[in-house]
């Protein structure tokens, strides 16, 4: 539909079409960047080994956070519901996996399952909690909704902390089930659990889950429910007048958005082999939301990019840059600067630098790096110049006719 629409538009107004129809230099560059990025992600473990980057310890974590950002993008980007407590679903996903697979779980004497079953169940448990959060907030909008979700994000880790008899509280839960992968060991192909330190296997497991998530989200965005979300985001009252079931549509946004973080949480818990409530504090919600905003709210590829960039900054760049600066400090040997540089620890300034960067971004490019087209219009204010023209011409004609 949009392909036909774009071509007819291009015919009417070439200047307008140039920007839009994807065959422009701009579009080619964008697609090339995208393809390169996907190939880079798919081959990253090999690249890492080849170049001796030694970043495989950090990269799976970045991917998990990117999946979180994709899930949050459904709630915030597609449906327009601001959620500040997204880490709660991450925690719920992680603890679901722990409950179902860990020998320290209170369920251990009665029921244990393997990682994959636990992962799928944590998908549904997180979705259920999405509905539990969504149901009382149905009538809330904007700021009020944000406050309730914020509270939810604070309550969940606190409940986990205090339900000590089940969750082990602050001591956390250990020995969470590990996924099996078809691998060769001792010359035999079989399903073996991922050996804890084998980050490449973790990487590809998460990459696969991420790819499935992207595909699912892409299909969702272009489905009936996706259109209902966008209509609701634009104008709830009008969406209701079109026969969209607002209750159902909102609850589905919360449930589906939460379910992706359920996935992510279970993998996170299994990869770390340990979870406690402190891993899911407010800063997680904020970072994930920042990933969504940085990349461009509502745009799946933008969000993936935002997740990669912020994850890279958070987990790799700050510590690396610290050692670079220290190296420089040692090398230059200047009186004051050297001693400062040698002592510096950028990881302490992580949030400060990040905050400043976010402020600059919001001032210069409020729609994010790769905005969803509709959303960009929203941010820049309604109509372009052509609308003004249309109104004035029409009003003039009308006025002329009256006179």
């Amino acid at each position: 539909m949009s392909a036909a629409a774009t071509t007819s538009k291009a015919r009417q107004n070439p200047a307008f079409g140039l920007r839009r129809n994807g065959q422009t230099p701009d579009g080619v560059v964008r697609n090339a960047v995208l393809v390169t990025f996907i190939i880079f992600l798919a081959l990253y473990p090999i690249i890492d080994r080849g170049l001796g980057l030694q970043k495989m310890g950090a990269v799976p974590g970045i991917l998990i956070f990117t999946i979180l950002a994709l899930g949050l993008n459904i709630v915030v980007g597609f449906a327009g519901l601001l959620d500040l407590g997204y880490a709660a679903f991450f925690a719920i996903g992680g603890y679901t996996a722990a409950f179902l697979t860990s020998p320290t779980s209170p369920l251990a004497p009665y029921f244990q399952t393997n990682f994959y079953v636990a992962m799928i169940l944590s998908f549904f448990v997180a979705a259920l909690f999405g509905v539990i959060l969504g149901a009382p907030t149905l009538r809330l909008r904007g700021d009020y909704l944000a406050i309730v979700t914020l509270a939810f994000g604070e309550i969940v880790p606190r409940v986990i902390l205090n339900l000590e008899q089940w969750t082990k509280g602050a001591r956390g839960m250990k020995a969470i089930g590990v996924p099996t992968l078809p691998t060769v060991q001792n010359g035999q192909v079989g399903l073996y659990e991922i050996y804890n330190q084998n980050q490449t296997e973790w990487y590809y497991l998460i990459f696969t889950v991420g790819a499935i998530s992207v595909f699912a989200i892409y299909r969702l965005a272009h489905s009936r429910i996706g259109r209902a979300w966008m209509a609701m985001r634009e104008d709830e009252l009008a969406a209701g007048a079109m026969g969209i079931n607002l209750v159902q549509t909102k609850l589905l946004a919360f449930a589906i958005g939460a379910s992706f973080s359920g996935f992510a949480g279970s993998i996170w818990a299994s990869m770390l082999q340990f979870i406690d409530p402190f891993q899911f504090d407010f800063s997680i919600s904020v970072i994930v939301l920042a990933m969504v905003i940085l990349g461009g709210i509502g745009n799946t590829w933008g969000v993936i990019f935002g997740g990669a960039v912020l994850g890279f900054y958070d987990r790799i760049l700050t510590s690396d840059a610290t050692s670079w600066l220290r190296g420089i400090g040692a090398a230059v040997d200047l009186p004051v600067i050297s001693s400062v540089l040698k002592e510096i620890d950028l990881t302490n300034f992580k949030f400060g630098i990040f905050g400043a960067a976010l402020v600059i971004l919001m001032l210069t490019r409020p729609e994010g790096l790769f905005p969803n087209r509709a959303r960009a219009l929203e941010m820049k204010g309604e109509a372009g110049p052509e609308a003004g023209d249309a109104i004035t011409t029409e009003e003039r004609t009308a006025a002329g006719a009256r006179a």
Partner: protein
Amino acid sequence: MSAPAVTTPAAPRRAASESPLALELRDVHTYYGHIHALKGVSLNVQHGEIVTLIGANGAGKTTTLRTISGVLHPRQGEVLLQGDRIDKLAPHQIVLRGVCQSPEGRRIFSRMTVRENLEMGAFARRDAGAIAADFDRVLALFPRLKERLAQKGGTLSGGEQQMLAIGRALMSSPRVLLLDEPSMGLAPMLVETIFTTIVEINRQGVTVLLVEQNALMALNVASRGYVLETGRIVLGGPAQELQRNEQVQKSYLGIE
């Protein structure tokens, strides 16, 4: 929402002949919290009619439409569609029963294209063939929209947005069309175009309940009318009679 009473969303649409009244409000009281907005409104619309509801700002015109379309629920009284109560249904269920509202202030999806807006209008329907036919019908009614199918809704002029809002409502294939202030903010020329189209829509078999401040135009196209004042119907009757009524002339037609 509180809609447990009747939960068959895709209730079969009944033949027009079953009940003589397309729409009926019986002693409807609607509140906004503690504010008593509708104080016993009773009115009816017969099949194939254009009925207009006129009144000043704050008289309760929009509240009446919202009560019909299910956005608000009456605390007392009944809303009947072809003799069936709909006052406890959710808005989307009412759309499925063939009542669609073109809301006040147009409220088109400004970031979607004209085509996408019209497609959203058919959201509740699944009959692809009939939707395509209705799409053509709407474009025939509003040729201006045909020229602008790929344009973003927000870039349309006020008149075009109104056409889009009505067209979008028609895409749900309603049997009763609720129009809230279609003339609002439009140049007189365009108001005439819109009203001509409303008559044409009605001629194609759609029952219309028209809420208007522009009483002159509304009474010209309607067969009957009601006058609403502070939540009460104070006058009702054939449109020509209302046009001759001294009180109506003074308050709403600007004739001294």
